[in-house]
């Protein structure tokens, strides 16, 4: 049997990779994808714990996370399209007008 620690470590690795990706990617679509990766890493942890604690609730939460992710993808991608129309670029560092 695979120990839960391994699932959790995998989840941690994927989450950290996602976070790293958010930070180092300048392409706004890539950033967004890394956010999705982070969400999935969390889902993995949820399901692992659900199994470990023998409760269904964790899985229900994963279900909700997926729904939110879908909504987020719809709105987020619409915003990316708008951003591209406005700036003619996908470079997130060009979105820097909201500052002092």
């Amino acid at each position, binding site marked *: 049997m695979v120990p839960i620690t391994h699932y959790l470590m995998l989840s941690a690795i994927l989450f950290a990779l996602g*976070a790293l990706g*958010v*930070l*180092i990617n*300048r392409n706004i679509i890539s*950033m967004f994808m890394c956010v999705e990766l982070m969400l999935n890493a969390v889902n993995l942890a949820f399901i692992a714990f659900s199994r470990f604690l023998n409760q269904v609730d964790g899985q229900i939460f994963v279900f909700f996370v997926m729904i939110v992710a879908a909504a987020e993808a719809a709105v987020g991608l619409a915003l990316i399209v708008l951003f591209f129309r406005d700036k003619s670029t996908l470079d*997130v*560092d060009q*979105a*820097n*007008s*909201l*500052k*002092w």
Partner: protein
Amino acid sequence: MPYNFENGFWVLILFPLLGAAVNGLMGKRFPAGMVALIACFMSGLSFLVAFGTFLQFSNLPGESRVLSKHLFTWIESGNFVASFGLLLDPLSMVMILIITGVGFLIHVYSTRYMREHPGFYRYFAYLNLFIFMMSVLALADNYLMMFIGWEGVGLCSYLLIGYYFDRKSAGDAAKKAFIVNRVGDAGFILGVLLIFRTFQSVEFIPVFEQVVRRFPEAEASFGILSAIALLLFVGAIGKSAQIPLYVWLPDAMEGPTPVSALIHAATMVTAGVYLTARSAALYSRTPEVLALVASIGAITALFAALIATVQTDIKRVLAYSTVSQLGYMFIAVGVGAFGAGIFHLFTHAFFKALLFLGAGSVILALHHEQNLFKMGGLRRYLPITSLTMWIGTLAISGIPPFAGFFSKDEILAKAYESPLGSPLLWALGLVAAGLTAFYMFRLMFLTFHGRGHHEKHPPREDSNSVSIPLLFLALFSLIAGWIGLPPYLGINRFEHFLEPSFRYQYQHGASETAHTSELLLASVTILAAVLGIAVSYLLYVRKPGTSGKLASRFPSVYRILERKFYVDEIYDFLVVHPLYRLAVRTLWRTIDVRLIDGTVNGTGSFFQAWGHLLKRIQAGYARIYASWVLWGALLVILYCYFSLA
């Protein structure tokens, strides 16, 4: 009667307020004629109501001649109640008649006098406001409301002295009047507070009734009543320009001449006398304070008359004359003859307003020339002004049968024979009377007689709106005294009329004197006036150069008089300069600039510096923000880890 003034007299204060509001708020868009019409109409209406009230009022039996009208409760706090109520008794009736009557005539006069000046509507709005405030002062039924009127007329006075605000001297004079008056007003308000503390009320009648009950005898030594009376008198000194606070009144002549006539001669400056007479119940029980009042009045009367003898500005002569005449009124109230004081106030209002308006007419005809020595020979060009001013001069000099004689004679007689009076007071007043005749005749000789240089541009009398008020005032200057005849000639109706107002007064013994001695006193008074006239005639008509010779013969005396006893300089050195230095060096440069501004600016620059430092965090890069979010998450996790472990 179609209208019952007994209940409706209070509307008379509304008209000027309405006029002030209309002219003040919208007058800028009205043509000048309409502004003048509104202002004159409102003050005229006010006078009509006052006069109608007077007609009904005088038909009432003597003891019921106290009408009060409670309009609304103004302040109510604990046992302190100040109502907005009016009290009409003979004393306030006299004041109201003067205020609205003379006020109306001066409104009419102003329509011509102020015609060429910009801000016509502003002038009339202030003037109407003044009538309102003065009426509130006179009709108030409690000290606090009187104080409103008191401050209100002070404000109007300030605004009107500084009416030519583009002239620095006018602005300075306005400030001086305002600040000097503040000193007196502080005394007034403290007196009112002390009254409330002592009697738990500020309304006249309850206070006076308590005074009568609790102090059946006069205070033998300085007590609470004396303290109240003294504080109120400080207020009266400030408003009525007595030593030591008289300095603002001569400077107040910077204002337009009709204002000098109305505010600084006939009405506002007499408010101090009115206050003292109104508080007769208090003052008559404090002989020590009364002695002070009489002394200050006598010294002021003499002192101001002395200064007036060498002034060269026509309005300044009249201003010092006003100070001197106010001194007379204080002599009267100071010897317990409140009625005589008010009588002089009444006659003085007519002849001094007349003299000021006449002076205004001269100034107008000479295109704003005010120096007496550049006038002369105006008799031929300004016949009406000349005639009316002569009447006023005779009145102020105390020549029978003009109004001033009766009131001045009564004051001097009372100063001599009253239990509170003394021959010294009488002597001071007598000298001042002689000086008054001297400087007034000097003014008249220099202005209207002798040779002038007006052939090129002959000055001419102005329109009817100038001469009609002059004629009216001249008429009253002639006859107003006849209602207060001395005992050897008839009945003093005026004092009899006023009696209900002074029913709470404490009587200091009887003052029965034989008619013969009164006649003697009167003759001496007339003699003094005649002597003054004779000297004046000698110096300025018979031998016109003599005055200059006298001046060069006694240069120090002349200089002291001409510089008005250096009072302004002394005040400057003792009060103004130290205060100024304190204000500039300590309060402004140190406390304000360093401490207060430093704190405020320091707070600002402190946060600005931090802002400069912290704004780098908000760089505008989404990824940097994301890293801050992660740093935050990391901190939370670290906290959880170490707190759980």
